[in-house]
């Protein structure tokens, strides 16, 4: 039996699962927008602007979800500053929850700056001060902000998996692949979100084709990493002989990865889903991304340590 079965569950559930999903999606969407900012064409601007706005809303929501989940929400700033020696910085490079708090803060800052730039580009900013900030970002700083924010975006998508790995809990601490899996899922759900939202902002067919093609590749990477993750769990895989295992197999692998891949490659084989294959695939990818977090979190949270320890 893995020694991880003697630890206690931290009760990270109904605020943290949506946070992991939204944080991953926001990070992935910003990363794709940043790639297009640097290497895309002028016709990709609607996708870029959508990516920045999704990231800004996602980053702010993530911060709120994290704060609400704390036992003492008004002390959220203790993760950023030393409460007894304010304003000394609180930072532990070896603690994912510590560097993650800073990453969320910085990612939020960069994504809001980029979103202001995008809104300025669309002429949607009424406030003079915000218009000025948006104008600066939209000008010479756009690529610099996008470059740093893009890296932070992938960091935010992946550190949540690393955070789980740097514990002593079953499943999470029994494999080093969870961070990589969340990075891949963040990329696929980020692309899926852009596929669904960017057309409303005037995204071109070519931009959407690129996103769709990238989503297929991200799903293939996700499937590969998921196999490596499960392979590395060894005997701990018995926790999947449960409802969460069924959810992982049917909801994540089936509905969230294989069916969307099929819709991208051979849409005609999928009956009614083939009517709008790219959009339907994107919806299923989002569902799969959420269920991935749900299954990995609750499969470990649900283990009753004393029953397992006693072999019951």
């Amino acid at each position, binding site marked *: *039996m893995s*020694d*991880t079965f*003697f*630890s*206690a*569950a*931290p*009760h*990270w559930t109904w605020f943290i699962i949506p946070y992991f999903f939204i944080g991953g999606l926001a990070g992935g969407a910003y*990363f*794709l927008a940043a*790639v*297009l900012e640097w290497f895309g064409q002028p016709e990709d601007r609607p996708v870029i602007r959508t990516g920045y706005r999704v990231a800004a809303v996602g980053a702010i929501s993530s911060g709120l979800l994290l704060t609400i*989940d*704390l*036992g*003492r*929400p008004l*002390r*959220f700033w*203790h*993760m950023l500053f030393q*409460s*007894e020696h304010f304003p000394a910085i*609180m930072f*532990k490079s*070896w*603690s*994912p929850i510590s560097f993650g708090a800073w990453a969320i803060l910085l990612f939020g800052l960069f994504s809001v700056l980029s979103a202001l730039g995008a809104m300025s580009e669309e002429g949607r900013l009424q406030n003079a001060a915000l218009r000025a900030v948006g104008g600066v970002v939209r000008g010479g700083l756009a690529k610099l902000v996008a470059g740093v924010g893009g890296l932070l975006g*992938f960091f935010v998508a*992946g550190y949540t*998996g*690393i955070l789980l*790995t*740097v*514990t*002593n809990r079953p499943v999470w*601490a029994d494999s*080093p*692949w*969870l*961070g*990589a*899996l*969340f*990075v*891949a899922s963040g*990329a696929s759900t980020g692309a899926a979100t852009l596929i669904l939202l960017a057309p409303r902002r005037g995204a071109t067919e*070519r931009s959407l084709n*690129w996103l769709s093609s*990238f989503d297929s*590749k*991200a799903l293939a*990477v996700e499937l590969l*990493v998921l196999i490596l993750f499960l392979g590395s769990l060894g005997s701990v895989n018995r926790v999947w002989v449960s409802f969460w295992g069924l959810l992982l197999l049917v909801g994540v692998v089936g509905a969230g990865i294989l069916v969307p891949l099929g819709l991208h490659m051979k849409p005609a084989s999928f009956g009614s889903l083939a009517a709008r294959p790219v959009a339907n695939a994107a919806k299923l990818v989002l569902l799969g991304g959420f269920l991935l977090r749900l299954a990995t979190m609750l499969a470990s949270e649900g283990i009753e*340590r*004393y029953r397992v*320890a*006693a072999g019951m």
Partner: protein
Amino acid sequence: MPEPMGFFTDTTICIGCKACEVACKNWNQLPAENGGVKELSGNSYDNTGRLDGIHWRHVKFIEQFEAPYQGRWLMMSDVCKHCVQAGCLEVCPTGAIIRTEFDTVVIQSDVCNGCRACIAACPFGVIDMNPVSGTAQKCTLCHDRLQVGLEPACAKACPTDSIQFGTITELRGRAQKRVEQLKGQGVNAYLYGADPNGPLGGLNSFYLLVDKPEVYGLPQKPQLPTRNLKSSASFSTASAAVLGLLALVGLRKRRMDDMGGRNG
């Protein structure tokens, strides 16, 4: 600077009286669970269940009866191990968890914000939330009593000296003599967590056991949570690099197709 202090718990002389649990709750003013209305667990004489934010001592009852009239009781008063290399202290993002002048590990309740990272990091399942304070809590090894020269409440209350308090050096010597005495009587006794070169650099609350650690609900080889940090960060970075490359390859292909279309 005082010497490192801790507990040596000799499980062979624990009688399951739970005086340690009561003394701990009393001294530390820990609240009752469910307003004091308690359902019996049905699990031997153990109605505490586990260590958590309001139970900092827990007497475990292990019944080993394979046939009628053949068997034994194992009893063990469990508590925070005050690890020399503490996983909870390592991951705490607020600096609420500190190592004291007595080499013990204490959660400062006025600094903790209840993020619960320490709960998942502890390999022994010791820490949990205190619903009253909204913070993570566990045994402090009676830091307030130690500061005025008193021994911890649980050790003071233990009627059989199953829980012994003292300097780690002195306790290790005493524990080793007890192991030899028991072995001389044919009992397969050994020390869990007493080796400074063992897992987590040794435990400042260590045990004398007579069965495998897992029988007592203890991990065989407890580890620090950061053991996976480097490999996990490397795989995540590699995954991000592959995805970034795939995004760029897709853009390049689109550009090549455009050029091909224009030339064609």
